[in-house]
């Protein structure tokens, strides 16, 4: 084609076509997601409508409620739906928040180290290490948790006296909040490190050079200029990590104990070794019971809660990022 490429005709037209095609692909993705949300909400509706707002409250034992739902009579009018999800919601929030807060501090320092302080040789090791940790499947983390950490905590960190002191309420076997948070932190930190490292690298050189020229030391420059400019990306990294932590199922169902128990912070150190039961892990635990209709609908209700909270998470992060964007590096 020897056509003269004038900006008004040739390339512009194909650009328009590319835009339409790619926009259509993006819309397909959006429609798929929307369809999935509607599907999950429609499936989940009976569980919500039978319980009302009490669904989110506490009351009774979650585990026996789940068993009752599983054993509900075959007559659709007599389906058992009573369910109070508070211990599960609380456990999800505890595990997620714990992992994200610990993970963020860890990821921030690690990212700064990789970008600014690591000697070249160590950096060459660290970057593949981060990628490796991010790519390890969650089952493997769960396996390590159940084979190594859980027995260690159960046998060495929890004293017999502590076990007996709460034996009438809950058994302390090592499947615990602390193990869940530790492994989840190891799982989500690499994602945050990778995102924050990339953001720190995109901070304009002139900004940091200006600070160096004013006589600030390397740490001050990174902390006050680079990290500050990268804030939108850090928020974005937190959102992705939180979303992943919210959705983590297999590993948590392996190490968290799967006992519908709400740990009480007033218990002191025992709090950390008490078992929990997050929402996503409960779905995995009960996956075989899906053919029982009311149980299936209850599990879809969990999925709906997770989806909606992720949506709010995403929207909230977008709002938080708005004022930061002015001087920040694009995430």
């Amino acid at each position, binding site marked *: 084609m020897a056509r003269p490429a004038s900006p008004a005709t040739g390339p512009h037209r194909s650009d328009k076509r590319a835009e339409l095609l790619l926009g259509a*692909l993006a819309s397909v993705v959006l429609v798929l997601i929307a369809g999935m949300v509607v599907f999950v909400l429609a499936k989940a509706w009976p569980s919500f409508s039978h319980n009302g707002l009490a669904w989110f409250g506490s009351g009774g034992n979650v585990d026996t409620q789940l068993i009752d739902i599983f054993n509900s009579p075959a007559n659709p009018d007599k389906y058992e739906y009573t369910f109070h999800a508070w211990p599960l919601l609380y456990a999800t929030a505890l595990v997620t928040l714990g992992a994200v807060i610990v993970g963020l501090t860890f990821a921030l320092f690690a990212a700064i180290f990789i970008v600014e302080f690591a000697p070249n040789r160590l950096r060459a090791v660290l970057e593949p290490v981060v990628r490796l940790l991010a790519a390890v499947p969650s089952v493997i983390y769960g396996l390590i948790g159940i084979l190594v950490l859980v027995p260690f905590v159960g046998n060495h960190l929890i004293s017999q006296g502590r076990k007996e002191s709460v034996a009438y309420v809950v058994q302390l076997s090592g499947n615990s909040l602390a193990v869940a948070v530790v492994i989840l932190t190891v799982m989500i930190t690499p994602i945050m490190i990778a995102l924050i490292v990339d953001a720190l690298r995109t901070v304009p050189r002139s900004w940091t050079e200006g600070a160096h020229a004013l006589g600030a030391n390397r740490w001050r420059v990174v902390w006050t200029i680079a990290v500050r400019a990268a804030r939108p990306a850090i928020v974005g990294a937190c959102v992705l990590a939180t979303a992943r932590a919210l959705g983590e199922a297999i590993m948590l169902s392996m190490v968290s104990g799967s006992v519908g128990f709400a740990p009480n912070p007033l218990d002191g150190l025992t709090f950390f070794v008490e078992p929990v039961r997050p929402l996503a892990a409960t779905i995995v635990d009960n996956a075989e019971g899906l053919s029982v209709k009311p149980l299936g609908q209850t599990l879809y209700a969990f999925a709906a809660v997770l989806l909606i909270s*992720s949506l709010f998470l995403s929207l909230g992060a977008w709002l938080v990022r708005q004022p930061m964007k002015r001087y920040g590096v694009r995430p």
Partner: protein
Amino acid sequence: MEAATARVPAARPLESGWRRSDRLFVGLCWATGILLCLIAGSLVLYMLFRGLQYVSVDLLTTHPVSDLDQSKTGGFLDPLIGTVILAVMGTLIALPLGVGAAVWLTEYGRPAWLARSVESGIEMVAGSMRPVKPASAEGPTRLALHTAVGLAPIYRVTLRLERPLSALDQPCASARSPIFCATAFFT
């Protein structure tokens, strides 16, 4: 000239020295970096040490059989093939969708409301995909579709971060890490 110099305030000592807190934080940076290496190293070593001693070519190439004695049921050819099929199918669906959506978001994203909702939708599904998956999967197609949607955010993130002048020739390069991640989505 003299007036100008007179207006300059007396020079304060520059904060170029390393304060104790600065040193502490740099120390923390070193600690986290080394800890990261230690965690990854122990993970790999543990898996190699505990796992590799049981793996043999025989085990990888035979089909599983049913036996009351669990030690004789070995052979994981079937799950291996299954993993490969799922990964390939998922990636095939994910590649055009994910890359297309990602390029559109980074390069065009013109009706802002549409771009905003695609972005939120993707972020929403990025994490919570996994628990929904076992609850609603009714076959390999569905699973593959979900992976497709789940992969999109990864493409998007990689694309956004590498943000080249023309993002169109980039997907091939940046698709490598998501494909690597695809296996993680199936486990």
